[in-house]
């Protein structure tokens, strides 16, 4: 009998053993397998006729099978002979709910911010922070945003009440975007610079379903020799896959920001429908996610970085908006209302 013959025998035995439900069954089975005329005994017949090498190997295999079958018999015998067990006197209702230790939940905005930061961290962007109280210089002028121009209009800015009435050349304000931090980083470091800056930003928008006077952005900046628009496209396409899923498509549309040139708005394929069109993307298949562009040479000049030698790209995205899209939150005000039924969901 071959090796596979032994395996087959084992399988046959296992099947028979499993079917043996009583002590009497077991006894019959024992006679059939282990007894004097049993199948195991018969295996050794003819063994003596084999050449010594083969005989040794075969003998070992048969012996192992015997041991295994005998052990299985004994175990089954013990199981069948044991007294049937009723429930313990102190039986419990196992369907009662467990006592859960109370766990605090992370706030979805702060954890989305962490997620964004980590994705860019994996791409080599160091996380740095900038002040929330800024000046007109850093918030506007150094970013090539003429203060007295419609280009500054989207930045509905909160100015601070200054003791001298704000008569100094640069007035104090709450930053209306995270881009001023770009300038601080460029002023304090030499290229290569590769950073992200997450943080709070402030605008005079009245609160509604998609606006809050305080919200969050993450800003990215990469300045080095030879940085190109293709690098920008590549980095953001990769980041979008990390953020929104490996199948995410990224689309770049020309746009305008005073501090980048060329500038682009970036859409990703709709998170809900994947690009076929649905109410969330107004049927377009695309969702606008961020603004970006090549750092305007004028901005580099403000930071005393030579635009003939260095180039860079910058991008900025709304953390709240991304959290809303990813988590399906329909009203931005939920984030700041501290409602227990909202906070308990994350």
């Amino acid at each position, binding site marked *: 009998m071959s090796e596979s013959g032994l395996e087959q025998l084992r399988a046959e035995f296992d099947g028979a053993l499993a079917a043996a439900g009583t002590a009497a069954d077991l006894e019959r089975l024992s006679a059939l397998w282990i007894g004097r005329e049993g199948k195991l005994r018969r295996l050794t017949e003819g063994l003596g006729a084999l050449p010594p090498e083969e005989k040794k190997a075969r003998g070992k295999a048969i012996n192992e099978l015997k041991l295994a079958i005998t052990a299985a018999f004994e175990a089954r015998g013990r199981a069948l002979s044991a007294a049937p067990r009723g429930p313990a006197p102190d039986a419990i209702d196992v369907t009662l709910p467990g006592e859960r230790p109370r766990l*605090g939940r992370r706030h979805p905005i702060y954890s989305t911010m962490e997620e964004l930061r980590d994705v860019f961290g994996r791409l080599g962007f160091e996380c740095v*922070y900038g002040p929330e*109280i800024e000046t007109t210089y850093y918030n506007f002028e150094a970013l090539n945003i003429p203060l007295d*121009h419609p280009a500054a209009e989207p930045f509905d800015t909160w100015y601070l009440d200054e003791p001298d009435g704000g008569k100094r050349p640069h007035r104090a304000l709450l930053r209306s975007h995270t881009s001023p931090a770009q300038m601080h980083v460029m002023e304090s470091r030499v290229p290569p610079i590769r950073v992200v800056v997450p943080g709070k930003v402030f605008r005079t928008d009245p609160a509604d379903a998609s606006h809050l006077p305080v919200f969050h952005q993450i800003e990215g900046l990469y300045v080095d020799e030879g940085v*190109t*628009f293709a690098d920008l*496209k590549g980095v953001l396409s990769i980041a979008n896959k990390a953020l929104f899923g490996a199948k995410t498509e990224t689309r770049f549309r020309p746009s305008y920001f*005073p501090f980048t040139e060329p500038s682009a*708005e970036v859409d990703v394929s709709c998170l809900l429908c994947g690009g076929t069109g649905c109410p969330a993307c107004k049927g377009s298949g695309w969702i606008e996610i961020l603004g970006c562009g090549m750092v305007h040479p004028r901005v580099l000049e403000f930071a005393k970085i030579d635009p003939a030698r260095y180039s860079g790209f910058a991008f900025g995205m709304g953390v709240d908006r991304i959290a809303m899209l990813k988590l399906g939150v329909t009203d931005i005000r939920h984030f700041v209302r501290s*409602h227990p039924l909202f906070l308990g969901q994350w």
Partner: protein
Amino acid sequence: MKLTWDWLNEYCRTELPVAKAAELLTRAGVKVEGIEEKGGETVLELEITANRPDCLSLLGVAREASVVTGKPMREPALPAAVPHAATSPDWTLDVQDRELCPRYIGRVVRGVRPGSSTEAVRRRLEAIGLRPVNAIVDVTNFVLYECGQPLHAFDLDRLAGHAVQVRRGRPGEKLKAIDGRDYDVAGALVIADAEKPVAIAGVMGGKDTEVTAATTRVLLEAAVFDPLSVRRTSMKLALASDASYRFQRGLDPARVDWASRRAAALMAEFGRGQVAPEVLDSAPGLPPARQVRIATGTIARVLGREIEPAQSRRILELLGFTVQDDGGGWTVTVPSWRGDVSRDVDIVEEVARVYGYDRIPDTPRVPIVLAPPNPFDEAARETRRALCGAGFGEVLTLSFTGRHAHEAPFLPGEPVGVLGKTGKREELMRQGLVPSLLEAVRTHEAYGEKGADLFEIAKVYARDPRGFQERMVLGVIGSGGFSATKGALEQVLERLGLAAGASFRASERGHLVPGRTAELVHESVVLGALGEVDPALCAVHDVRSRPVAAELDFEALVDRARLARRFQEFPTLPAIQRDIAVILDRPVSWAEVAGCVRAASSSGLLESIRFFDLYEGKGVPAGKKSIAFSVTLRAPDRTLTSEEADREVRGIVEALGAKLGGILRG
């Protein structure tokens, strides 16, 4: 900006379905936000960025459409120029402020009968959201939308002295505008007749001189006004119009004369009038065209993709630029309508957006670098984990706290006020996190949540003699009493590697209950405080419970944190644990007891002390308390004997008696 599809196709027959054309325009940066059917017209809503005032017109959009579709653009033909009359006109033009009004063209249309416009014109204007008025006014709007140049029509015979002056408004001068409201125009650039202002330059005309059914002679204004001046006036008067929107973005100087002729011709046609050969032009001629140099290779250097020079050149020429090879680069002449193009990178963008951003590769060639972790992020992550694990939930609250701002300040100094659009102080920035956290607790209570344990890491703000200050603070609020909240803070300190050097001592804060308040000291620097919130402050915030709040200077925690861990050998010989309960005077603190116990053990056998019970009441005399604790004793080199442990405990009890008056309890 809105426009109708049919109207657009008059200037560029795209021969495409509207959705396809919209897609092509959007991909080139002229964003079509929506397409809707309205009153039998297909209306496109465009979002035009601030740098492209040329696209605030049908002709501007048609030019873009022509470039992206490859179909020719067709400008409306102007009637042949009418020769100037030999006789001088019976009205005068006097531009007094040539800086704010570089050019003013007045043109007269005689014999008009300003009835209604044709149905076709009315329908178009209505479709884009304009209200038809009469044939004359409608023409000014029609041409404004057609070419982007704002126009105004005066009833010439209602201008006192038949005079037109362009000057600053004088003190006390007012004007009733077409919207029926009175505006104080002192200092603003105005159009005036011999007596009074008749229009706010570039913003809105006056009611008294507007064209009515009775008008027979129209003075048509086409002018260039300084963008900043129009902007300031519009903002100061809180009055915006299609005209002011365009003027402040900068207009095509070459369109002024064109628009004047075009409108006059249409007025003659629709208003059944006659174009009089009476034109006064304050400054005929055009400013010189701008030239921009772009060195060979710039496009590839910026984009990371080579574009055939012939193709780049073709794109630029289609857009109206002229390109001259100057050896080593191009000298590009910018068309009059593209005031936004002034540097080589602007040229790169023009080429790239028409070439197609999607055709630029997205394969980054960025070197691999290791971004160093930010210490703040690492400490914040540990803190959040510790607090969430301890059952505290993270909240996000607004940085403004209005009336509550200067209660419970954490940062010393004056509160920071923020100014609204009116320049008045509208809000205060929070100076501490406690009021925000109390608001969050109130919300939890209002929704029946018992036990709001919350925290936030966020900034607080103040102003001191050095200037504005901001500081990142960890705020914690707990419902489980002082020791539960303190315990959570201790966990945080432990996770940040700061437990060893940290201690709490009795202290006071204005917003916390005296006697139930402590401050955290780390290596002799105070990092914050913890205590039961003053019931009065709770009442202000409608908080019914008595939460315990803590605020720590998170930036100091980050600076001090020691997050790296190293394995420490731990003892393997058995220890002996003994419980001790002593009766002490009530004011004696645990810190004193622990200090006394440590000092009493000179043998080096005392490994640790653990508090486990505080008791007052039956069996303990009034004014006294019972403190129970256990000590763990261990010898580093041998198994400690029971006798040694007894001796050690006797020494501890004696010291407690001698130094603190403690009596061993039962």
